[in-house]
């Protein structure tokens, strides 16, 4: 809701001036190409390590972009006023999703047997696998992966296209169309991120299962995606753009960061609690690997760093409304990185932490490439939806 007091004339459109990017675009591209180049060496000399490192970096950025699509969809589904000023940046982040299909190709084409143990096990060898044959078979696996990317690309592109078209023609029909895409988009993100989580992460050990897995992956993704949005907005503001975004908008984004820190802890704990309490070897294996040897320190640090530290800090209104929100946002993004690392890498190095150059190269490579693509998206359209019917409500926002 906005206040009822002051009349405001619509603000002029803001467009990002490419000169503000400076050399950043080239640096990101060099990082991207360099990182992917080093990873390519890993592809030939240490295929298995490459596969896990690549999956780790891929999942990190992919889930964050899925989170951005979730937030975009949510704003339309709930007809939100507050978010109009910051919404274009969510759309720009979500617009990166189709590119992940390309980055997923090396995994599904050349690394599947290294990552997913069930891939090459013949029927009749493992009765537990035979029971899952209806879901865990090559054809269905390919079809599902294609489905995730197709649907995510369709919804994210449509939302971006409609929103930018409205900048030009100001037609109300786009708002109604985006509302439909938003409501459907929530379902698409929920299904895609859950089942992608099942297929690519839970599938690292086909014996193990957790029905909360999809929600767990989503909870971390949504919170870190909001953190990234905060940082993007702050950087744009520091360059002199988006002056209309004020502490009220940061307050709301901070509240979402707090909510999703709690939600992550709630889901993560519930999953742990049920497995710990039931104590069935088939289920406990996941935590047995991650709570022994050097992985134990990673797991403990994750619990403290992803929840117990940000929770009291974000609880204070002062944090959410001042520059400290940026520090917390960086911290949450680092913790999300740790979370994905602890999910993926222990499946390979079961006896403890073993760092690899390819972890870093995959991260720098995919991150650099995505950053470069994001900057390309940034200059393509206005920095906020200039003719959205709810824009004035967002400008006059008060909590």
């Amino acid at each position, binding site marked *: 809701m906005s206040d009822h007091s002051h009349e405001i004339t619509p603000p002029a459109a803001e467009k990002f001036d490419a000169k503000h990017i400076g050399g950043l675009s080239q640096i990101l591209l060099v990082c991207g190409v360099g990182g992917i180049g080093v990873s390519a060496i890993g592809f030939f000399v240490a295929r298995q390590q490459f596969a896990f490192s690549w999956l780790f970096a891929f999942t990190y950025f992919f889930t964050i972009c899925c989170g951005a699509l979730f937030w975009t969809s949510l704003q339309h589904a709930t007809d939100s006023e507050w978010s109009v000023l910051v919404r274009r940046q969510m759309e720009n982040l979500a617009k990166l999703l189709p590119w992940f299909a390309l980055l997923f190709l090396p995994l599904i084409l050349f690394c599947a047997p290294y990552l997913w143990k069930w891939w090459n096990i013949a029927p009749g060898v493992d009765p537990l696998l035979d029971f899952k044959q209806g879901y865990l078979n090559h054809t269905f696996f390919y079809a599902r992966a294609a489905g995730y990317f197709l649907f995510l690309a369709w919804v994210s592109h449509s939302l971006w296209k409609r929103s930018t078209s409205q900048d030009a023609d100001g037609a109300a029909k786009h708002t109604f169309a985006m509302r439909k895409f938003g409501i459907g988009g929530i379902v698409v993100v929920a299904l895609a991120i859950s089942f992608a989580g099942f297929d690519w992460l839970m599938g690292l050990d086909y014996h193990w299962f957790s029905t909360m897995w999809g929600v767990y992956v989503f909870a971390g993704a949504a919170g870190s995606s909001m953190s990234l949005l905060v940082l993007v907005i702050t950087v744009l503001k520091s360059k002199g753009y988006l002056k209309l975004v004020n502490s009220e908008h940061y307050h709301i984004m901070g509240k979402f960061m707090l909510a999703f820190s709690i939600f992550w802890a709630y889901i993560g704990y519930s999953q742990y609690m049920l497995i710990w309490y039931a104590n069935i070897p088939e289920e406990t294996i996941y935590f047995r690997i991650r709570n022994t040897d050097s992985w134990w320190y990673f797991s403990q640090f994750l619990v403290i760093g992803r929840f117990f530290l940000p929770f009291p800090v974000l609880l204070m209104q002062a944090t959410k409304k001042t520059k400290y929100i940026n520090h917390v946002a960086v911290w949450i993004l680092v913790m999300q990185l740790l979370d994905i690392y602890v999910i993926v890498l222990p499946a390979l190095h079961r006896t403890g932490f073993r760092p690899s150059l390819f972890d870093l190269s995959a991260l720098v490579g995919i991150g650099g490439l995505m950053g470069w693509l994001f900057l390309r998206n940034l200059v393509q359209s206005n920095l906020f939806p200039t003719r959205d019917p709810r824009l004035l409500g967002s400008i006059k926002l*008060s909590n």
Partner: protein
Amino acid sequence: MAEYRKIYGLGAQFESAAALMHAAEKIRDAGFSKWDVHTPYPVHGMDKAMGLGKSWLSTPVLIGGATGTLTATLLTFIPSWGIYPMIVHGKPFNWATVPAFFPIMFELTVLFSAFSTVFALLIMNQLPKWYHPVFNWERFSRVTDDGFFIVIEARDAKFSETKTRALLEEIGGLHVTLIHD
């Protein structure tokens, strides 16, 4: 009898929420402290227009929540470590048993925070209250329908029956009325 009753304050009606907001800003700037606005629905931004600042409700809630966590911690650890130590389900018998107690800590934190919110809110709003002088003003019943009101209390140091009346009229107040206790 009416003429012997104490004066409670001056009330004025305003045409719209926007007019009320402008009026509230002016009264805030005039330096009044014992006054209030009354509207049929919550008006966002009014707390700023009135110069109210941040509510102190969060302090009792934090204290309540922390008390809840502490209570739950003691309620679970004292019996299972001290009074009735018992191994259940073969679970560890040390600090590592804490996951079993998290639900209780969580629930009591929520429960105590909720209680402290409700009771602090009642105290802050001086509720329950069976009588309020503003209801002596017949027009005021429209506050639940379409009326926007400002009432400045007589106990305000800046209150003056004539000057405050002039101020309310100047900022667009209609039906400025003296309200008796």
